[in-house]
C-alpha cells in the first residue's frame, strides 16, 4: 500500500520539488513523518487526519509512514499539508493514481478540510514548470498567482474534497482551471504632481530615477521628505515582465502579496528605524526569510530617520547596495535573496531638526549635532550619489506655487534616458549610470572643454575625493542623458555638483 505525490518546499525564494511517499502498513494507528521535516511540517501530522475526515474520506487506521525526499533537505512551510494528505489517501487507494504524477500539489489544510491561502505559490509553480510537470493544484486564492507561469496548467481548489474529486475524474464538484487573469493596474494613487513646491527636490528625484541613483534627503521635520520618497516609484521605469515575476515571487514567499496576482507597481518599502538586522536584511530562525531589502527588490527602500537605524543593520546594507543581492547565513544553510533597490534615505539636518531653517533656531549642542552628522557619513553615504536638501517651505513660498508635472510624463523622460543608457552599456551587464564602475564613468562622461575647466575648479574648491569625483561624473552623465546630450556640458556638470554629497571634511567644518 504505497502512494507518491509531488510537493514543493521553499528554500529562500526558490521552490524545490519534494517527493512525498506514504506507506500504510501493519501496526498501531499512527502517522510517522521522516525526511527532515521542519517544525511547521511536523505540525502537519496533527492537521492532516482531521482534514481528511472532514472531507468525508476515510483515514487508514493503521501505521502510516510518510517520507519526504530528498531526505537531506530541510522542509519548511505549510504548503506540504496537501501532498501529505494526498499521499496517504493514494496509499489507501482513495482514488486512481494516473493524474497524480502529472501535477505538483501545494496548500495548507485547515482542520475542516479547506485549502488556505499559502505563501510562495508562484515559486511552487515555477519549480513545477522547471521539473517538467504539466500543472499544479493549489488553493483557489493563490491560483491567479500560479497562472503567471506560462504553459502550466493551474487547478485552483477550495477544499481537499474538490482535489480528490478532480483526481477521481468526477467533473461536477471539480475545481476551477485558472488561466492568467492579471489584476488591473494599481489604482492611480500617489503622483508627483501632488507635491507642492519643492521643484528642486522633484527635479533631483527625476535625475535619481533616470540614472538609478541612491538619494539622501536632508531636511527639517515636515519638509515633505516622506511624501517625496513615496512618489519615486511612480516615476521609475515600468517593471518589465521578468522583473514583475521576480517581485511577485519574492512577495509571495514572504506572504505579503495580498490580493495581487502579478505585482505591477514597483515596491516601496519603508521599514521603521527600530527594525532588526534580520528584519531589514533577511533571516529569522530556521530557514532564512527575505528581509525588507529583498521586498524592495526592483523598487524603493526608504529609510526615514536613517541616523536612528541600528549601526549593524545599516552596515549590512553595504552588500545589497554593491551586489544587488543579500546572502543570509543561518544554521540551516545560507541563502542568497535578490535585493536590487533604489535607496532613499532621509535625515534631519541635526538632532533637533532645524539647523539651517531661517525661521526657527537650532537648539542642538554642537557635540551632539556633530556626532549626528558623523552618523550620516561613513560607508552608507559613500554609496549615495545624490544628496538633496529639502527646505521647510514658508506659507508665502508655498503660495503661488503651481502644481508640478504629473508622474507619467516625468516617467516618459526617465524611460527615454534609461533606453539611451541601455544602448551605451549594451553587453556589459550594466543597465544604468549609477552601476557603472569608476573608470568607465570617467570615460563615458565625455566632458567638453568648459566642463573640464569647471570640474577642475570644483575638485579644488570642494576637495572632492576620488569617489566623490566619480559620483559627480555619474550624475552629470545622467543629467546629460535626460537632456539627450552626447557630451556632458557645463550646465549638466554644475547641476550634478549641486547634488554632491558633503564630504567628511565638510561635515567637520560645518558649524
Amino acid at each position, binding site marked *: 500500500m504505497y502512494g507518491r505525490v509531488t510537493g514543493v518546499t521553499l528554500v529562500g525564494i526558490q521552490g524545490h520539488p519534494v517527493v512525498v511517499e506514504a506507506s500504510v502498513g501493519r501496526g498501531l494507528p499512527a502517522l510517522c513523518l521522516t525526511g527532515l521535516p521542519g517544525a511547521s511540517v511536523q505540525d502537519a501530522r496533527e492537521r492532516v487526519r482531521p482534514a481528511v475526515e472532514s472531507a468525508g474520506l476515510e483515514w487508514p487506521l493503521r501505521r502510516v509512514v510518510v517520507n519526504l525526499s530528498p531526505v537531506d533537505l530541510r522542509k519548511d512551510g505549510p504548503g506540504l499539508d496537501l501532498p501529505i494528505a494526498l499521499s496517504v489517501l493514494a496509499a489507501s487507494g482513495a482514488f486512481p493514481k494516473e493524474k497524480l504524477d502529472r501535477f505538483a500539489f501545494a496548500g495548507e489544510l485547515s482542520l475542516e478540510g479547506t485549502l488556505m491561502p499559502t505563501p510562495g505559490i508562484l515559486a511552487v509553480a515555477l519549480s513545477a514548470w522547471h521539473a517538467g510537470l504539466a500543472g499544479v493544484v493549489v488553493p483557489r486564492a493563490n491560483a491567479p498567482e500560479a497562472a503567471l507561469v506560462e504553459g502550466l496548467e493551474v487547478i485552483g481548489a477550495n477544499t481537499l474534497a474538490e482535489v480528490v474529486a478532480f483526481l477521481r475524474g468526477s467533473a461536477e464538484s471539480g475545481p476551477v482551471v485558472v488561466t492568467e487573469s492579471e489584476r488591473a493596474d494599481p489604482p492611480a494613487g500617489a503622483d508627483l504632481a501632488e507635491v507642492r*513646491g*519643492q*521643484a*528642486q*527636490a522633484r*527635479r533631483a528625484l527625476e535625475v535619481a530615477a533616470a540614472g538609478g541613483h541612491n538619494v539622501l534627503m536632508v*531636511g527639517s521635520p515636515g519638509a515633505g521628505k516622506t511624501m517625496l520618497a513615496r512618489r519615486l516609484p511612480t516615476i521609475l521605469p515600468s517593471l518589465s515582465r521578468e522583473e514583475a515575476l521576480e517581485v511577485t515571487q519574492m512577495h509571495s514567499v514572504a506572504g505579503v502579496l495580498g490580493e495581487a496576482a502579478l505585482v505591477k507597481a514597483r515596491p516601496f518599502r519603508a521599514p521603521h528605524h527600530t527594525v532588526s538586522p534580520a528584519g531589514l536584511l533577511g533571516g529569522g530562525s530556521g530557514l532564512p526569510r527575505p528581509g525588507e531589502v529583498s521586498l524592495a527588490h526592483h523598487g524603493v527602500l526608504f529609510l526615514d530617520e536613517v541616523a536612528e537605524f541600528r549601526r549593524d543593520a545599516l552596515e549590512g546594507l553595504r552588500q545589497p547596495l554593491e551586489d544587488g543581492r543579500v546572502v543570509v547565513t543561518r544554521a540551516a544553510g545560507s541563502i542568497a535573496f535578490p535585493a536590487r533597490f533604489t535607496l532613499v534615505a532621509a535625515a534631519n*539636518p541635526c538632532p533637533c531638526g532645524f*539647523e*539651517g*531653517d*531661517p*525661521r*526657527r*533656531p*537650532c537648539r542642538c549642542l*554642537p557635540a551632539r549635532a556633530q556626532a549626528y552628522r558623523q552618523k550620516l557619513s561613513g560607508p552608507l553615504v559613500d554609496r549615495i550619489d545624490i544628496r*538633496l*536638501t*529639502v*527646505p521647510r*517651505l514658508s506659507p508665502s*513660498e508655498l503660495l503661488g*506655487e503651481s502644481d508640478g508635472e504629473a508622474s507619467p510624463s516625468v516617467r516618459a523622460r526617465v524611460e527615454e534616458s534609461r533606453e539611451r543608457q541601455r544602448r551605451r552599456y549594451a553587453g556589459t551587464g550594466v543597465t544604468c549610470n549609477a552601476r557603472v564602475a569608476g573608470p568607465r564613468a570617467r570615460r563615458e562622461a565625455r566632458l567638453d572643454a568648459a566642463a573640464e575647466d*569647471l570640474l577642475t*575648479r*570644483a575638485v579644488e*574648491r570642494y576637495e572632492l575625493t576620488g569617489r566623490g569625483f566619480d559620483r559627480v561624473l555619474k550624475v552629470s552623465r545622467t*543629467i546629460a542623458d535626460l537632456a539627450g546630450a552626447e557630451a556632458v556640458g*557645463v*550646465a*549638466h*556638470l*554644475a*547641476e550634478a*555638483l*549641486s547634488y554632491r554629497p558633503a564630504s567628511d571634511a565638510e561635515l567637520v567644518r560645518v*558649524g
Partner: protein
Amino acid sequence: MRNSSVSAETGRFSWPQGFAEGPANRDALLVLTGMQGLTPRAVVELSERFGDASGCLVAVVAGRGGSDADRRHAAGTDPRHVRATLEACRARMVVPGTQEYPPGMLALPDPPAALFVRGTPLDQLLPGVAVVGSRSGSSLGRDIARALGRGLAASGITVVSGAARGIDGASHEGALLVEGGGTVAVLGSGIDVAYPQRNAGLLARIEASGAIVSEYPPGVPAEPRRFPARNRLIAAAGIALVIIEGAAGSGTLITCDHALGLGRPVYAVPGPVNSPLSEVPLKLIRDGATMIRGADDLLLDLGLAGEGSDGQLAIAGLTSVEEAVLAQLAGPTLPEHVARELELTVADVVPVLMQLELRGVVRAAGGRYERCLPG
C-alpha cells in the same frame, strides 16, 4: 595697537603702589589667582586694605577674606610649581605696573590682578577692537565676522574675541587670513585649557600670530560661570565693541553691558528682521548702537580710513544670466523662485547658482541660496 591714531583710554583705577613688585608679590599672585572663592573684586578690596599682593595673601590665610577652600588652596600651592606649569605651556604672568599690562583693563571696576599670556607681548597688540556674537552663528554671520576680522587686521587693528565657536572663531580666523594679522583670544578657562576642544588648532595659530589671554592659571577648567567674567576682559581690551548676531538672552548682551559700562562705543551688524539671531544687533541699533555693514564702515567711524562699505555688492565679470540670477537673491531664496521670476526651469537655474557658488559669490543654505559677502 600699531596704529598711532587710536589712543588708549587712560585708566581710572590704580593698584596700590608696588602691588605686584618683587618676586614675593609675584609668587603671592601665582597663588591668589588660583583661588576659586576669590572674585577679582574681592582682590581689589583686599589690596585697598592690605597693600601689596603678599599682604593680600597673608590676609586670606588669616581668614580675613576668601573661603576655607581658598586657604586649603594657599596651603597646598607652591608658587614654584605654578611657575613650572606656566613654563610648560609657554605662558607667562603679566602683572599691573608693567609695560605689558593693558591699560584698558584699569577702566574696569574689577581689573584682573594678573593676566596669563601666551604669544606676542600684549602691549604690541592692545588695545584692539572687540568682536563678539552668537556661538551658533549662521553661515552668513560667520562670513561677516571673517570679513570684518580680515578687514581690521589688514588695517593693523587687533581683533579681540573669545575663541568660541561661531562668530568668535570666525573673527579670529579672518584676522589670521592677513599676513601678520594680530588677534587676541581671551579664554574663560585656565591659560593651558583649549576650549572648545575643537578650536585647539585655531588657538595654536592665534598664539603664533597674536596672543592668548586668561586671568586663570593653568588647570582651571572651562565652566560657563566664568564666561561672563571673561567677557568683561574682552570688552576692556578693545577701544570699541562690534556685535554680529546674537539671540535674545545670549552672553553677547553681557559683553555689550560691560562695553557700555566702560564707555566703549558699541557697533552692530544688522541681520534679517525675521532671524532669531538678529534680535540682539537689531535691538542694539534701535537703542542707539551704530550700524555698520562691515570693516570699512567701522574703520571710517573710528577715523582710520575714508572708504565706507558702499558698492561692495557689485561683482565684476558675470554673464548676463548670472547677473539676473544674482539679482533675485535677496535673502535665502528657493531656486524655483528664481526660476519663476526669470521664466526659466529649475534645471536651468541650479547650474547657474552652482557656478556662482564655485566663484564664492553665493552659497547653498538648507535648500535655498543666498549671497556671500565679498572678501
